[in-house]
């Protein structure tokens, strides 16, 4: 019997996210941030994932809270993996013909340390002439991130219809209907901390000033998605009691750990 690999499981999750990999659909809600980070981590051995990620982001990028993505990626990824993520975000903007992730890339880029450009596909490292040729022909995005990527094209033909994908993943509506990324990411940060977060800590994680989170937080409180508890000095932002404390896909840390995956 064929053993299911991490790549097989990622393809199942991509299938649920609307990218037509040859795999059965993952049968539980998926966390797009975890999906992107896991794909970035495996892209060096399975470079298809880079193309899948960039294509998917070009069409469905609005569901991704990018500040939360960057913060989570910084906790879990190496510099090479962060460079691949940056390259993927910028490639998706190139595919989509817009600058949705320009701010994300400008935020991420200064923190990524790459000593010398490296090929996306790890197997190519054994091929110095080829790597040198890739470096010579690298485009601006590859050069900026130090990731030598072969030809990548937007595989829109592999994407399912948006309405079908959103109907299958109703938990994404929360992101789609948010007012901008600070609000979208704030909700994810607060949901991920059962003990709650101070406004300063939330601002720090979002990479913005404390005053920049004021309006998004006020809106989330008005919508009864979150609440502010405690005295002025010790106030914490928590999920509103009427909201699920854990998102449908939270604990997906467990999903990305192969040994804990539900089968």
């Amino acid at each position: 019997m064929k053993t299911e690999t991490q790549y097989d499981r990622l393809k199942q999750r991509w299938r649920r996210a609307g990218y037509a990999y040859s795999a059965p659909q993952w049968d539980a809600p998926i966390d797009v941030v975890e999906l992107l980070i896991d794909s970035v981590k495996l892209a060096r051995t399975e470079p298809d994932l880079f193309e899948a990620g960039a294509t998917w982001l070009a069409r469905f990028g609005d569901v991704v809270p990018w500040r939360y993505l960057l913060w989570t990626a910084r906790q879990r990824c190496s510099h090479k993996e962060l460079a691949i993520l940056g390259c993927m975000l910028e490639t998706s903007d190139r595919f989509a013909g817009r600058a949705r992730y320009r701010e994300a890339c400008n935020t991420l880029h200064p923190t990524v340390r790459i000593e010398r450009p490296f090929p996306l596909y790890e197997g190519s490292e054994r091929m110095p002439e080829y790597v040198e040729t890739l470096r010579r022909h690298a485009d601006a995005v590859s050069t900026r991130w130090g990731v030598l990527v072969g030809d990548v094209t937007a595989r829109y033909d592999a994407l399912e219809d948006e309405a079908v994908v959103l109907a299958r993943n109703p938990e994404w509506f929360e992101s789609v209907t948010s007012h901008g990324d600070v609000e979208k990411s704030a909700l994810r940060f607060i949901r991920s901390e059962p003990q709650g977060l101070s406004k300063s800590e939330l601002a720090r994680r979002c990479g913005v000033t404390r005053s920049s989170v004021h309006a998004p937080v006020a809106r989330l409180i008005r919508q009864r998605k979150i609440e502010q508890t405690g005295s002025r000095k010790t106030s914490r932002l928590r999920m509103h009691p009427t909201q699920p404390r854990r998102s449908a896909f939270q604990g997906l840390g467990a999903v990305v750990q192969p040994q804990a995956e539900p089968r």
Partner: protein
Amino acid sequence: MFDTRETIIQALEALGRHPGLAGASATVVVLAGRAAGILIGEIRTNTADCDVVAWPDGFSRSGPIEGCAQDIAKAHGLPTDWFNSECSLTSGWKLPPDYRDRWERVGRFGPLDVRCISRLDLIAMKMLATRDRDMRDLESLRPRAQELDWVGGFVATLKERFPGEAQTIDIAKARLLDMRKSPRAQSHED
């Protein structure tokens, strides 16, 4: 999606039975890419489509076959372009001109006489394909030293014929140089 020879054959059988092809005159269809690799047992991976690299009988992509293939896609849950000849337009130049001396017969499906390119031609085309996943396929093909020599000879003829493809040809030459030096190629020398 296809990950075994059987899954590809099943889709081709369904296509061959499509009423839209009933009474059509027999035509040869040549497959390349991962589908060809899977059909000849040289690549163990999966692919979303069957890339038609040549219609030696002069059919074109405007013919009825791709339209019928789209019907099969709906019925079998395949991507709409699972049977397409995009490759014949973009990568036809990467196919060695004498590929018919080596092509392999897959089977007859209604009017479709399906062939696929040989291992040697697949290596040549993958050498000239510039996506990272093609590099991965090339590695799994583990070309032998004499196959690399043959492909090198073919690639050397291209620069003059296709000056607009200089970058791709450069990449292929660099890959050949590295692969010739690799212990893998040398250990396959027999």
